[in-house]
């Protein structure tokens, strides 16, 4: 069961990451980046690393996406 979860989440993350990189609009790529963060949190949890999962959730996905959104705000959404 665990192997199947890992495989499916990895495939999901790879698709979302590739979409995030190749997006035209920056706002979309930031939102897709949050998806990658979410997937990696679930993966860390299945790897029996709760501390790392909590850190990735709060810092790796939470605050990093906030920082990107603030950058987007200051850099002008049209960029």
């Amino acid at each position, binding site marked *: 069961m665990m192997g199947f979860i890992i495989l499916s989440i990895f495939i999901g993350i790879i698709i979302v990451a590739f979409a995030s990189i190749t997006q035209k609009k920056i706002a979309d790529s930031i939102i897709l980046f949050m998806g990658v963060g979410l997937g990696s949190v679930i993966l860390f949890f299945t790897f029996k690393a709760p*501390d790392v*999962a*909590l850190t990735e959730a*709060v*810092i790796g996905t*939470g*605050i990093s996406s*906030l920082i990107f959104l603030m950058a987007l*705000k*200051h850099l002008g959404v049209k960029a």
Partner: protein
Amino acid sequence: MSLKRELLTSTLSGFALSAVLVLTILNILLQNIPDAITSAGDELLKLNATEGVANAVTTVVVYFRGFDTLGEIAVLFIASLGISLMLHSNTQCEIKAESNFMLKTASKILFPIIMLFGIYVMIYGHLSPGGGFQGGVIIASGVLLLLISDKNFEVPHAMIVALEAFAGVSYVLIGLIGLLVLDKFLGNFLPSDISNMGLLFSGGIIPIIYIIVGIKVGSEMSLIVQNLIKRGENV
């Protein structure tokens, strides 16, 4: 060369170069996936049994590799110093968007819950997953909610800076006391017997350091968040 074709070649060459690089790394990695090796972790787990802290990761982060965490606090301190240097322009930018009613009421309800959860994660860092870093950032996200919901909320600058300075100085002083008492920087000079393994006050200086780290990270992250939101002219 037309821009379209130039863009195409640059993406293709980027694609090819990174593909070659990663394929070589991949086949090297796939050939020798190591089976279970006796890593340093096992001895650390035995050693941790004597420290009386339930969460082994916290012992490793704060005590066994405490110097990395001190370096980590230095990294965050310099980053927040650099960000305030960069974005601290005198023209305070007005958030034009008038935050709507829903955001205001929701943040009033959510703020205490987030703060409670952040403080819980910080204080119970050595018993359950979590700790100083995660607790501090959760508190900073609570402060962020306030910053967004009402425009003229301003983080009490003097109090935060004093808190941050107090936490940083006490962290280094604990390290220096360890140096004096045990002749080992960041040594665990408080008693940490195994009897009260699961209790709140177990593990000597480990929970104290992690709460200090939480205070420092919380105050620094709220300053960073405030600088990112408020300072600088809005486009």
